[in-house]
């Protein structure tokens, strides 16, 4: 059993050596003259307004949660669509069960107004 882990330990040791060497080499080779605008966090060229740890409105969380739900739906649907013929009737029925439950949830959030940006 323990010998199975030898490659992992070699790998970890390799990482431990390689990273300091790369960083050190880069430090020695690169020209070094920082300025204020160079040290600013870079985001699409827009100047940062304030700290990113501030409060968000709760609407973002609702959108995020809904996104996860439909993201998972897609993850389910894609493999099924790829293997549609092989899975046949059984796959279709199972997927319909899944989709019916999801559609009920969709109607519910729609009617509750969770999709509107109030």
């Amino acid at each position, binding site marked *: 059993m323990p010998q199975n882990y030898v490659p992992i330990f070699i790998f970890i040791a390799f990482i431990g050596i390689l990273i300091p060497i790369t960083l050190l080499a880069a430090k020695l080779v690169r020209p070094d003259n920082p300025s204020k605008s160079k040290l600013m966090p870079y985001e699409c060229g827009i100047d940062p307004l304030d700290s990113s740890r501030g409060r968000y409105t709760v609407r973002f969380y609702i959108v995020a949660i809904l996104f996860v739900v439909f993201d998972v739906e897609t993850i389910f649907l894609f493999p099924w669509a790829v293997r549609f013929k092989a899975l046949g009737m059984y796959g279709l029925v199972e997927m319909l069960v899944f989709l019916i439950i999801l559609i009920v949830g969709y109607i*519910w959030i729609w009617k509750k107004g969770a999709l509107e940006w109030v």
Partner: protein
Amino acid sequence: MTTPPFNLADYIMSLPIILLTLFALGILLIDLVTPKRWKWMNAVTALVGIAFSTGAIVFRSQKALRLSGGSGLLAYSNSMLIDRYALYFWYLFLAAAAISILLSVRYLEIEQENHGEYYALILFSVVGMMCMAAGLDVVLIFIGLELMAISTYVLVGFLRTNRRSNEAALKYLLLGAFSSGIFAYGLSLLYGLTGQTNLIGIAQGLQQRMASGNGHPGPIMVIALLTTATGLLFKIAAVPFHQWAPDAYEGAPTSIAGFMSVAVKAAAWAMLLRIVLIGLGPLRSVYVPLFIFVSIASMTAANLAALTQSNMKRLLAYSSIAHVGYMLLGLVAGTTTQVSVDGIRGILMYLLVYTFMNLGAFGVIASLRQRNVIGDELDDIAGLYYRAPTESVLMLLFLLSLAGIPPLAGFYGKYFIFLSLIETGHYALASLAVIYAVFGLYYYMKIANYIFMREAIDKTRLPLSWGMRAGLGIAAFATVFIGIYPEPFIRTVNWSLGLAQSALVAGLTH
């Protein structure tokens, strides 16, 4: 994949679960078009759903089981074992959910949170519980557990404008998610050790490993057992994993606190017994000392903490932890290799009577909720007898039953547990449990003292709604009836157990 892994017979076997899911989805949709005045109709829909599900158990699952003549039917590629043990718990969950719904209707109207989602969530959590009780594959058990737990997290925080409810929900969510993580880790270790997710396969794998290690479990096996047990003990709220229970019960809507203390707990017990008796069966010599420690710790800590509580929901939460301590003794009873059948019978009987008496006690507290009085502090119930004599007498009944006084139902729960302990020679544990039962009597009678022997501050009579009357009536009737005439219920427990045992034996001998 040429042959589909499931067929129609599987769906028919699990029809109770499917029907319940459909009704829950239906409630979500119907609620969207229900005007505010008609929200109680959702409770009726939920009760109809429970009735249909019960009918499906009687006329489909149970019939199919009888016709097959076997000890249990495997469904969904061996991930679900529908045996009498599972059916017993299914009935228990449905009964607990029905009583909780009856107790909820008026309570939610007073809290002005009577949304249909409440009933849909209760049904969803019962679906999860049914998967836990019938699951033979740890993946199905885990999914059932999460379905139940997530529904319960939302239900605990259902009083959105109430800070205590929100706080309770957050605490329960964080600790619950943490324990689920540890539990999943334990299950993954078991999978790593045995290469199986099926409980019978896990048992066989562990058996082989124990045999090859001359009866000594390796360190990984002990870690797997500890992490799995941590998850299980958290869900049944045993000391030292009990901290969430008083907070969650106190903040939750009272009807949900009752539901959690009986149905969620029974589901956790169903899962615990399945995993411990079947999957971890070969490790019995390792887990018995662990459970003895947890059981003594639960009885000691909970009984001592309950003595000083002034909030009734917290007091009942600690008392429910103490009851878990007694029930764990049923698992300890037996030798180091063989579990005592009487002990398991005691646990099942205990869960049955506990469902009715504890729901009844929480129901009485829920009935005290008025527009301006929360009614869960001990001072709120001072002199209750002069304001609401019916509820007071019922509360006394439930409290005496919780304390284990014959001829009420609670006596039989404790009786079988203590009997199994004495039969297998655990005299010290039995005496300790009896001493703690006396502690229990003190704090239950403290509530009775407030109800009957104090002057009422507020003399107004308390109204009792129809749903509340029905729920409390059923709970009280069952508490008295099981106590006076326990025969059919003992027979039911034996009926359910014969097969849990033989499935266990079948799994270990192959």
